[in-house]
């Protein structure tokens, strides 16, 4: 189940028809003609699954006894479900730590490229961006090899150090290990977003700053960061959504650390396990909807706050 976040719809403008004194104003249907391909896809690909999930969440289909309407029972169960909140707490913590680290790294990389003080910026940009081009599953498999403390790179480092200091799959480290993979994957992607925002800054501003005697640090604070604010807000929202939907990385690593990465490690993994191992499609839909609502709410708050600062 993918969770879509309603982005602010563009303000719709009433078609301004010039009212003719004699003729009755005709209803203008031409707009719909242009919109229908989108509307059809939107209804079938976005709204229908969402509504179906809401519908599902109101029922309970038992292995014995069949399907029955249970109202909001599934929601009550979910709010009291320690397994769900365990996963939720983990992705929330993950979000609080990993998103700032990743975005700061991406911002630093973007500013570095933009500063024109680096040699081979093109190469640097490609190298940082490359991990994003690797399919997530492949990337995680690769990291799984590196993390293996029996035969992988980790084992070699431990051997060399003569201790077992690196334990990527230990219960206390596994979330950090996953954070490391996610950061590696998405720093380049966010860097490109930031960099493109920085590229839109008119050069006159820099000239003016130079005339005023501003140093590079002041240029970053007074010109570059404010200009990139919109991009930062967008990247933050995407990262928050991505964190709440964390699934691929832990799920691919699970066979290597089955006991540590539990079936409810993240809410999405929990929903997956509920439906595919437990055949609890209804409860799984409930979990997905709750996560969707929470994600949308948090993303919305970030957006409101982000834009308010922009107006200041």
């Amino acid at each position, binding site marked *: 189940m993918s969770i879509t976040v309603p982005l602010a719809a563009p303000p719709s403008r009433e078609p301004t028809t010039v009212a003719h004194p004699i003729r009755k104003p005709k209803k203008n249907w031409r707009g719909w003609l242009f919109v229908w391909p989108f509307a059809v896809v939107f209804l079938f690909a976005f709204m229908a699954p969402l509504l179906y999930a809401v519908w599902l969440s109101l029922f309970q289909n*038992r*292995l*014995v*006894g069949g399907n029955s309407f249970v109202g909001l029972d599934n929601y009550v169960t979910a709010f009291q479900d320690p397994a769900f909140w365990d996963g939720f707490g983990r992705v929330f913590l993950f979000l609080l730590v990993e998103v700032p680290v990743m975005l700061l790294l991406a911002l630093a990389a973007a500013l570095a490229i933009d500063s024109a003080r680096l040699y081979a910026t093109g190469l640097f940009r490609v190298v940082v961006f490359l991990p994003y081009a690797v399919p997530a599953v492949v990337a995680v498999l690769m990291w799984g*090899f590196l993390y*293996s403390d*029996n*035969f*992988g790179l980790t084992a070699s480092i431990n051997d060399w150090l003569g201790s077992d200091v690196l334990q990527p799959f230990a*219960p206390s480290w596994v979330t950090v290990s996953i954070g490391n993979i996610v950061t590696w994957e998405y720093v380049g992607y966010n860097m490109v977003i930031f960099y493109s925002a920085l590229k839109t800054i008119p050069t006159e501003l820099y000239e003016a700053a130079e005339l005023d005697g501003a140093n590079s640090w002041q240029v970053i604070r007074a010109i570059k960061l404010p200009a990139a604010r919109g991009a930062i807000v967008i990247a933050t929202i995407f990262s928050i959504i991505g964190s709440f939907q964390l699934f691929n990385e832990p799920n691919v690593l699970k*066979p*290597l650390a*089955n*006991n*540590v990465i*539990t*079936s*409810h490690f993240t809410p999405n993994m929990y929903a997956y*396990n509920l439906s*595919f*191992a*437990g*055949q*609890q*499609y209804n409860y799984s839909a409930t979990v997905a909807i709750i996560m969707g609502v929470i994600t949308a709410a948090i993303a919305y708050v970030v957006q409101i706050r982000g834009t308010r600062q922009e107006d200041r």
Partner: protein
Amino acid sequence: MTRSTRTTRKTAAALAAAALTAMTLAGCGSGDGPGAAAPAGSAADLDAALEEGGELTYWTWTPSGEAQAEAFMEEYPNVTVTVVNAGTATEEYTKLQNAIKAGSGAPDVAQIEYYALQQFVLSESLLDLSGYGFGDLEDTYTASTWSAVTGGDAIYGLPQDSGPMVLLYNQEIFDQFGLAVPTTWDEYVAAGEKLHAADPTKYITNDAGDPGFAQPLIWQAGGRPYQTDGTTVTVNLQDEGTKLWADTWNQLLEPGLLADIPTWSDDWWKALSDGTVATIVSGAWMPGIMEGSVPDGAGKWRVAPLPSYDGSAITAENGGSAQSVIKQSENPALAAAFLRWLNSSEESVNVFLENGGFPSTTAQLNSPEFLAEAPEYFGGQQINQVLVDASKNVATGWQYLPYQVYANSVFPDTVGTAYTASSDLNAGLQAWQEQIVSYGDSQGFSVNK
């Protein structure tokens, strides 16, 4: 691979065909029982369906699946069988469940492991084959595999292979460290202590927590934690036998004598190659896999009976699959006919054997040719004698849960914590039981009431 069953294939095929005809004729009389649940149709329908032909889809991850389907199509040119590898085990079940839930897209015939069969039976996804006279095939299979595919009078599939548990050990490591082949679990634990003390990089075996491994061992220890009667389920993961296994295994787990390497992981294959892991406890299908996947182990490994608690030869079944006809099939008679050929004709089983599989059919298990095989990989040991012996000593009376796939999925969450902390398995088993009970109750079963 040195399976040499090709010599008499032509005559065997002719005999098999004759035998099948006889069987189907016999089936005509008894197959058309008045049972309300039994599907319409008779054994004669199968032959008619084969004659008429059609298209079938078959989901399997068996290495010989493709070759078997080709042999089938050669014999019945009117039938086209498309073999699809939809993933191994749970991966396939996920897709199968989705297709069943969606109402279309399921294959006609699918491979399902014995432990998962009940779950598909419960959701009424599998065709009851008793109406096609499949009951007459009972004597074709070992008792334990036949009981795994039947429930009351209903027959939900035909056994493909069986996995009586044995011990595979690395002779080279055993010689190097002066270990004797253990016949009891006490000796096994002692060997584990001796080996790890002599070389801390070596382990008697690996176990990172695996329900597909723990449950057969509980089975062997005499534990019968699950009893199902209709929708009434009893779960006791602290019965005498289960505790016996947990207490024994604690002696290996708590002092760190088990390598924390997940079975089937990349690291595991390496550990089998380089001697990090000295023994594996596994089903009789494992030797065939070893030959293919651990080439460096050639000549080093041997097969022994599974250690037991009292020195007896008792063992249990680990894994093994059946093939079933999915109810969604649009041509159930043809699907059933293919299944009958697939898992009971000598031709098909021989293809399966050539690919290193371990059969469930008594004819193959007892053939002198099969018993006399002495693969180079196992130093010329006549391993099939050990394996076939094991298949005759499988303890009876084991039942899986009707929702075993789910139960296994939460094993790491519960028993797994004991593995991570190297602590008492009994505590983990109790936590697992709680999950099993609450899930069963929420699904409408009456569990432990």
